[in-house]
């Protein structure tokens, strides 16, 4: 699989009436990657997505999808994209099936077999011939995903896809997206507020605030690198002060409720445990404290909400 990025934003800017809403945004998404797009309310996530799909014009810069520029070669660029922007609006007076036929006609090569296949994939076989006005929100979301994947896009763009889904629905969507990215090599670009979901789903995340790219981080740590990394470890013990004494002050320990925490690497953790047990201390639990995405996010964006 070639490693040329599926979508590349180069210095993308948007100005409205003198205000710069998006400022020289540059990022890339690789094939088969689930890429998260995070930001506080009003930071410009939806605007960026709308520019990627051609709903809004760019004031500056360009966006390339599968090698085609969205500005100069729109139909070729967008042919490889499937998207759900905000709520997936369907024609309520048509059935789900008729909706899919309608949208399917606009892309070449989609036949009845493919529509049936997609309906089965999103689990709507039983209700697909009902009018959309009778669908629940979860079903509409699934129909939205169906119309987005009909033409086997190289890039799937989702703006807040978990809106209104129950936990089972969220779990299904997450599994499905990961499956898509692994098995079909589809790149998935998701913008969401649900940090816990993003943490579970994404390979990399970009954080945007006030129209500017703040950071891009990788969420999947390579197992090779972990053993050498120093991490904060929490030991739950019955007698914290004695425990620390037993460790002879190895690493600076801080007392916390129910135990103590130290900074140590993988091997030292095992050593410490052995020593504590040998000294008769009861060890109830050992936890490696990974800074959650939420903590990182709030730290990087300074906890502000409106851009």
């Amino acid at each position, binding site marked *: 699989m070639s490693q040329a990025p599926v979508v590349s934003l180069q210095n993308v800017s948007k100005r409205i009436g003198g205000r710069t809403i998006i400022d020289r945004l540059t990022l890339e998404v690789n094939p088969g990657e689930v890429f998260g797009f995070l930001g506080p309310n009003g930071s410009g996530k939806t605007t960026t997505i*709308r520019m990627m799909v051609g709903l*809004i*014009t760019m004031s500056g810069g360009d966006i390339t999808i599968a090698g085609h520029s969205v500005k100069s070669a729109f139909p070729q660029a967008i042919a490889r994209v499937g998207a759900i922007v905000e709520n997936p609006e369907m*024609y309520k007076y048509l059935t789900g099936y008729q909706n899919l036929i309608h949208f399917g006609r606009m892309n070449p090569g989609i036949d009845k077999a493919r529509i049936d296949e997609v309906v089965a994939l999103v689990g709507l076989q039983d209700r697909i011939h009902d009018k959309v006005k009778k669908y629940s929100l979860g079903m509409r979301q699934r129909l939205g995903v169906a119309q987005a994947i009909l033409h086997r896009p190289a890039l799937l763009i989702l703006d807040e896809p978990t809106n209104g889904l129950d936990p089972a629905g969220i779990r299904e969507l997450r599994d499905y997206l990961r499956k898509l990215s692994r098995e079909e090599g589809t790149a998935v670009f998701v913008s969401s507020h649900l940090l816990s979901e993003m943490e579970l789903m994404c390979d990399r995340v970009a954080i945007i605030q006030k129209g500017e790219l703040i950071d891009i981080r990788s969420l999947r740590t390579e197992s090779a690198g972990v053993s050498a990394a120093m991490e904060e470890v929490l030991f739950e013990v019955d007698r914290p002060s004695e425990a620390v004494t037993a460790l002879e002050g190895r690493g600076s320990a801080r007392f916390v409720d129910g135990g103590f925490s130290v900074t140590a690497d993988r091997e030292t953790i095992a050593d410490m445990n052995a020593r504590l047990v040998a000294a008769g201390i009861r060890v109830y639990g050992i936890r490696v404290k990974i800074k959650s995405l939420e903590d990182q996010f709030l730290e990087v964006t300074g906890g502000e909400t409106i851009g």
Partner: protein
Amino acid sequence: MKIYRRISTWIMLGITVVIPLLFTIAFVLLTEDNNANNWEAMMLESQVLFLLITIFAVVKSSETVAGEFSRGTIKLLLIRPWSRSAILLSKFISIILFALLFTVVSFAVTWLANVVAFGYTANPANLISDQSPLAGGSPWAYALRYYLDEFITLVVVVTFGFMLSAAFRSSGLAIGLSLFLLFSGTMISGLLSLTDKAWVKYVLFPHLGLSTYLNGGTPVPNHPTTYAFSLGVLAVYFVIFNVISWTVFTKRDVSA
């Protein structure tokens, strides 16, 4: 597909069929003398029907663009490998086909119903006035010409509604303004004629009454114009409306 799956379309079609039937029945029941002939009845009903058809077509044409925006489905429509021009054109064609369908149905139903009720008359006496360019000709030519004229007018009005729909993205506004201008058009023409200025010839409204030529008159009193001239004026407005629709639809951001 979208137009024909809506109940409203079928109701409109139903009305188009039923109204002339009702009229015909009324004629039969109410006229004592049997001088009434199928052609006269047909023309009378057609006048009424075209008014109805215009309203129906304007409603549909306003809905087709503005409805996508208000329903939010425009987003899904535009994120497809089609240029915006192609999408707009396909919508326009679908509306024209709708108008054509209703026109043809109207012709068929009025003709059939009245022939059934009154019998077929080959040379109706009072149908075509002596001043008409078609005087002495066949009633078929007259009826077809009438329908053609009205259809052309219909197309121009519908294009106007379509333009408003694309520009304002609100179907209510598009329908309201189009119908207002349609109905007050005669009044406005009348007012403008009072001024007796030559440029009144270039205003749209008088020329929407193309069928006045049929009866030997001209739309703008005191400033005679020819049929070709009217067609020309209508064509210019048609082009202007479409250019506006196209520009507005293709260039603007979709942020709603």
